[in-house]
């Protein structure tokens, strides 16, 4: 009996998201599908000990869920004589062919689900919340905790998103070929946003944040499995390569350790190996974009056994390509930092000063921190001090604050 229970739990872990995705398609409604999913697993717990575990658990669950949902709708209709549109809402009762309903040969329903949750017509924070809830199966409380939001706020966000899907009639489908690039961008953006929430927060914040990065990587893997586009592969590579350094990025006390000071023996070599394979594959397609290029840059770092072995010239070259594809001031800044490593701090400072003069990064704490560092290396203590203070005024993360204060103390001492 316990074995069956374990089996159901295992099936839940492996298949519940996919069952949900199919139920959403079959029933045409997120909330109905969620209820149906729970009903289906309840039925499994009751019936499988008696009848044995089915040969195709997923098909059984979809069928059971659908049956319960129809039942539920019928019961509601009995109390609502005005609801004569219920019959239109009912999935085709005479649906005899389970395989046809499961659409085994066509696209995985999880792909439909991902693209729907990440539809650009939904607000950005709602895309993130909805994806974590429906695709990853996180609870509202877990998502709220991870994003430091109040659960009712987050719940409301999700309710409104589902409502918009219904009212504006956002279809449950994988986009057509010509719409795919823009729509894929949206999905990748959501996944990377989730990853960064987990990545940027260092220790001191909770385990929950680390789980976010793991969740993002899991999502990235799913996407690559379902849709092996080069940029999806590139994003997964980028996340793996960045995540590989987690153990080395912060001290036990939660202090920031910069890349050049990290203990590289703490880097996760398995993740790095996988990341490097993926980025090579993405680059080989010749159809790559910003995520792949950022992954390539990360790979140059992870290839270096020690900081002195870093091929900065290659990094600068990659930034040149990246800038053509994504001409953002932040990328220009990162390139300037790389140029400084290649050609000396004076060359880097010239670029950073030009950037700040344009005004784009005036409120970006890392721009001032970079400037401060370059001034420090050039022996311009006063300018460095001013820039560190500017960066301090702008930073919002505790570990960054402590790091900058530390640098300021070093200057005075």
């Amino acid at each position: 009996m316990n074995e069956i229970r374990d089996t159901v739990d295992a099936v839940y872990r492996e298949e519940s998201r996919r069952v949900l995705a199919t139920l959403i398609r079959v029933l045409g409604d997120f909330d109905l599908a969620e209820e149906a999913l729970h009903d289906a697993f309840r039925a499994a717990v009751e019936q499988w000990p008696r009848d044995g575990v089915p040969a195709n658990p997923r098909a059984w669950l979809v069928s059971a869920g659908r049956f319960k949902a129809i039942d539920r709708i019928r019961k509601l209709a009995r109390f609502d004589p005005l609801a004569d549109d219920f019959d239109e809402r009912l999935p085709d009762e005479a649906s005899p062919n389970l395989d046809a309903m499961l659409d085994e040969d066509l696209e995985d329903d999880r792909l439909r689900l991902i693209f729907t949750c990440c539809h650009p017509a939904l607000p950005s924070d709602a895309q993130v919340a909805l994806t974590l809830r429906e695709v990853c199966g996180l609870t509202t409380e877990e998502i709220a905790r991870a994003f430091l939001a109040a659960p009712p706020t987050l719940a409301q966000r999700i309710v409104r998103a589902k409502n918009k899907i219904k009212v504006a009639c956002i279809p449950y489908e994988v986009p057509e070929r010509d719409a795919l690039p823009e729509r894929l961008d949206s999905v990748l953006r959501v996944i990377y946003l989730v990853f960064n929430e987990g990545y940027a927060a260092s220790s001191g914040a909770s385990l929950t944040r680390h789980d976010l990065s793991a969740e993002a990587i899991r999502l990235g893997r799913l996407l690559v499995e379902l849709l092996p586009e080069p940029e999806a592969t590139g994003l997964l590579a980028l996340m793996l390569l960045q995540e590989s350094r987690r153990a080395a990025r912060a001290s036990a006390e939660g202090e920031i350790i910069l890349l050049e000071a990290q203990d590289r023996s703490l880097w996760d070599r398995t993740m790095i190996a996988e990341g490097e394979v993926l980025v090579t594959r993405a680059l080989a397609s010749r159809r790559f974009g910003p995520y792949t290029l950022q992954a390539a840059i990360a790979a140059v770092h992870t290839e270096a056994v020690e900081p002195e072995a870093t091929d900065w010239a290659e990094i600068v070259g990659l930034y040149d390509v990246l800038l053509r594809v994504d001409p953002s001031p932040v990328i220009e800044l990162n390139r300037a930092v790389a140029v400084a490593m290649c050609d000396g701090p004076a060359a880097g400072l010239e670029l950073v000063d030009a950037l700040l003069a344009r005004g784009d990064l005036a409120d970006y704490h890392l721009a001032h921190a970079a400037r401060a560092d370059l001034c420090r290396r050039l022996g311009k203590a006063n300018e460095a001090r001013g820039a560190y203070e500017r960066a301090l005024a702008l930073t919002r993360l505790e570990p960054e604050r402590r790091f900058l204060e530390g640098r300021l103390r070093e200057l005075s001492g």
Partner: protein
Amino acid sequence: MKYLCLVYYQESDINAMSQNDWDTLNGECMAFGESIVESGHRLGGDALEPTHTATTVRVRNGKVTTTDGPFAETKEQLAGFYALEAKDLNDAIQVASRIPPARFGSIEIRPVRQLVPEDNTR
């Protein structure tokens, strides 16, 4: 599914065009209008005279106030609208993206709401 596509652009952009370019744009809009009749998307729609020809009416506490101009000064101004029948939002987006002013203005797509005697949604 019924949607309204509200076409917005900066009137200053239009005023900066040559007569030739403006006539060309209008021609493109006429061609677009025909194409959505053919495709079965069109339910209605019109181009509008510019905002300086607008008049705004408000009634407060039984008093009617009429003011010159649009309801508010906005960065982009309402230039016209299309009422569409579309399969779903993606279909509407596809159609809206072909509205010629979308190239330099903004098209707002709004689902149409049915009024009912009770339990109206919000």
